[in-house]
């Protein structure tokens, strides 16, 4: 009985660290059978960040568990001829192959797209690399922050006049992973329609650039560079030019809320929610244009109100008046306190063989007929050898024993 959106789709997953595993997490959460292929001599770096108090096992990383739930895992040495043969057999019974190595690695293994097609004519092959598989810099490599820097995203984040603040995490590992999942699913749809597979060449740097589309058009249409006074805009909103729109200090140590007001009607509701303090009725704040002009003063005055309140008190008071305001939430607040995330069952739990009960961030979309499901924790290193090599590929037990002896996996 079909239950998940991607039931019946099998994925051979060579991906590691964050970007590729983000793609395959999407596919696995919605029902695809994702089989991670790992090499036990070069572990996924994410296996090397054990959770506190859990010892040194490769199976106790929280980050790895969160990213690789719902996947199966085997180890394999593809440099051994028998290992390569097993891999080719596995590709022959799979729908999608995903890797995020530097460009050229799969070709060196003799498994570029043309070769994969010979094994599985309708294979969908996603390669997710820093710069793509063509062009003069294809052998350059990226980490998430490299791609963010090169695509223009780092520069767009910060206070005017200061160094870039950039992104405090590998945003482009997430986002390239999302585009990888979209590409796989669009290619699946095309295959459902025509029976045809294809090769998807995704460059992490390129997938970041369209996110800056408006800034690029400013240059190509109006000839205006982004590097100019006032950019980046901090937490203000130059386009549309509205005020107030900023972060505001709240009660507590380094606690903040955000308030964003887009028109005069919202401003009136805001003033009302604050109890109509004298400063707020000054003529210089009466229209949006004038508020934008005087926003330095305006922001200071608003802070006299927010500093008396916690971020959540400020948010609830303003939201009750229909104002788009929010607390700058900490991870602790998201996990332990956010009533919306709790209501939506966002944090899920399941038992992991070495870590016991473990928690996971959820999926933000509910599909009414084929929802995502937390079925499995992340695989222990080599956990599913019997299922994959014996049950799925039919390798006899004595052969498996011999291969284990010869370090094929």
């Amino acid at each position, binding site marked *: 009985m079909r239950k998940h959106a991607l039931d019946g789709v099998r994925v051979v997953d060579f991906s590691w660290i964050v970007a590729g595993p983000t793609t395959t997490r999407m596919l696995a959460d919605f029902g695809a059978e994702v089989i991670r292929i790992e090499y036990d001599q070069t572990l996924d770096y994410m296996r090397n960040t054990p959770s506190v108090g859990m010892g040194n096992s490769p199976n106790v990383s929280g980050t790895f568990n969160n990213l690789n739930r719902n996947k199966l895992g085997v180890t394999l040495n593809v440099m051994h001829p028998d290992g390569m043969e097993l891999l080719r057999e596995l590709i022959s019974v799979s729908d999608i192959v995903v890797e995020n190595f530097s460009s050229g690695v799969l070709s060196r293994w003799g498994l570029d797209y043309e070769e994969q097609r010979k094994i599985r004519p309708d294979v969908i092959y996603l390669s997710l690399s820093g710069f793509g598989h063509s062009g003069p810099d294809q052998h350059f490599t990226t980490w998430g922050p*490299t791609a963010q820097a090169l695509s223009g995203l*780092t520069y767009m984040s910060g206070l005017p006049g200061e160094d870039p603040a950039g992104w405090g995490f590998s945003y482009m590992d997430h986002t390239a992973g999302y585009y990888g999942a979209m590409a796989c699913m*669009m290619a699946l749809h095309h295959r459902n329609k025509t029976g045809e597979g294809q090769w998807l060449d995704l460059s992490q740097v390129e997938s970041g650039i369209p996110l800056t589309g408006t800034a690029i058009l400013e240059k190509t249409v109006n000839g205006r560079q982004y590097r100019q006074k006032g950019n980046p805009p901090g937490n203000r909103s130059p386009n549309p030019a509205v005020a107030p729109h900023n972060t505001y200090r709240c009660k507590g140590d380094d606690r903040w809320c955000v308030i964003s007001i887009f028109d005069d009607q919202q401003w009136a509701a805001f003033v009302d929610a604050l109890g109509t303090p004298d400063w707020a009725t000054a003529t210089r704040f009466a229209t949006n244009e004038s508020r934008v002009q005087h926003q330095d003063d305006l922001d200071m005055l608003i802070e006299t109100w927010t500093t008396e309140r916690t971020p959540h008190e400020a948010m609830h008071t303003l939201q009750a008046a229909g104002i788009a305001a929010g607390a700058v939430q900490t991870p602790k607040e998201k996990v332990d306190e956010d009533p919306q995330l709790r209501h939506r069952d966002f944090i899920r739990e399941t038992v992991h063989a070495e870590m016991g009960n473990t928690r996971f961030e959820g999926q933000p979309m509910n599909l009414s007929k084929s929802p995502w499901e937390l079925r499995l924790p992340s695989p222990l290193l080599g956990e599913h050898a019997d299922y994959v090599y014996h049950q799925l590929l039919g390798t006899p037990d004595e052969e498996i024993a011999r291969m284990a002896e010869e370090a094929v996996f």
Partner: protein
Amino acid sequence: MNDDQRALSDITMLDLCDEKGQLMGKLMGDMGARVIKIEPPSGARARSIGPFLNDEDDPEYSLYFWANNTSKESITLNLESEGGQSIFRQLASKANVVLESFDPGYLSSLGLDYASLSADNPELIMTSLTGFGQDGPYRDYKTSDIVALAMGGVMHSCGYDDVPGSPPIRPSGGHGYMIGAHYALMGTLMALNWRDMTGEGQYVDASIHEACSCTTEAAMPQYMYNGDVVHRQTGRHHGVASTPKTLCATSDGKFVNVFAVFTSLHAWRTLVTWMDSEDMAEDLTDEKYLDMAAMRTRSGPEVSHAYDVLRRFIASHPADYIYRGSQERKFPWGVVRSPDETLDDPHLWERGFFEEVEHPEIGQSFVYPGRPYVFSKTPWQTRRAPLLGEHNKKVYGQDLGISDTELEGLVSSGVI
């Protein structure tokens, strides 16, 4: 080019989204779906957001609208009129997908919720993208891009540790909405595969708050598994413990982002040899710097001295020299470019990334950023964003068979 080669050429979508969800229709349109953007007769609000062509505040000249609405058709329709609702029902009865981002409950107050639309069209997929989802205590809370990034925890991780008193920073450019749209689109494509397999449509309820909440990398597992709360650091990863600053200033007023300095002895020696070849390694050739395991702990005078020497080396060269020189030596370093500086990168042009998009009514074509992925068989193809109501005749006349006289009546009664 034959349209049938495109991955989504068989899909017709109705796009009711505002700024929150407009990216979904663009990405599907660029892959071949027929995307009909339904705008109020006065035009989508995004058309009023600048910058504008030649700084002229005109609904056809918004570069923000252009960037996020390529490859769509546009019709005008007043959904709050009875005539408008009846036309929308007709369109939805023939569509494959409806995308919307109204406040929860709005479409059902017009009788246009999924249950009633799918009654005539059980294969229909409908995706709703909202600030907080269709139910729960925050369902009716208002969102904005900065609210999404604050509540979801993105801002908690972004900002400065060396600018006293500075707030968390929202990376600018509309990413809160884009993160929501990316997830809502993935949900829509999942639903499409389900439909391909079963012939059944379904409803997709996507929450921007949750989308941002799972786009913060280690912040969540650090707390869920270790009980640690990460803090923000200038231009680099959030951390539980402080790490050395990775942004290094260059001689031309830019920055490069420097990592993996102590990953292996080979990498370290490669780097020191590079600096030494320009007599700038100072004392880093000394063997007391060779204990990589100790250097990786990222504290102590040797580490900060090594970074100081490295910073001096970098500060005496232009950014591009350091970028290319480091990459040729297998370091994953990058230049912090402004977005338009990507236009100067020959690698991107050689891969055919940028493309010219024609704007015939202006008599010009402009360079746009191109595709986020290259499909070997099904092409990406971009048309400029539609003019307001540009496709009224095509959709109402040809698709629905409404006569010219009837159309005039619908215009004068404010339905379209």
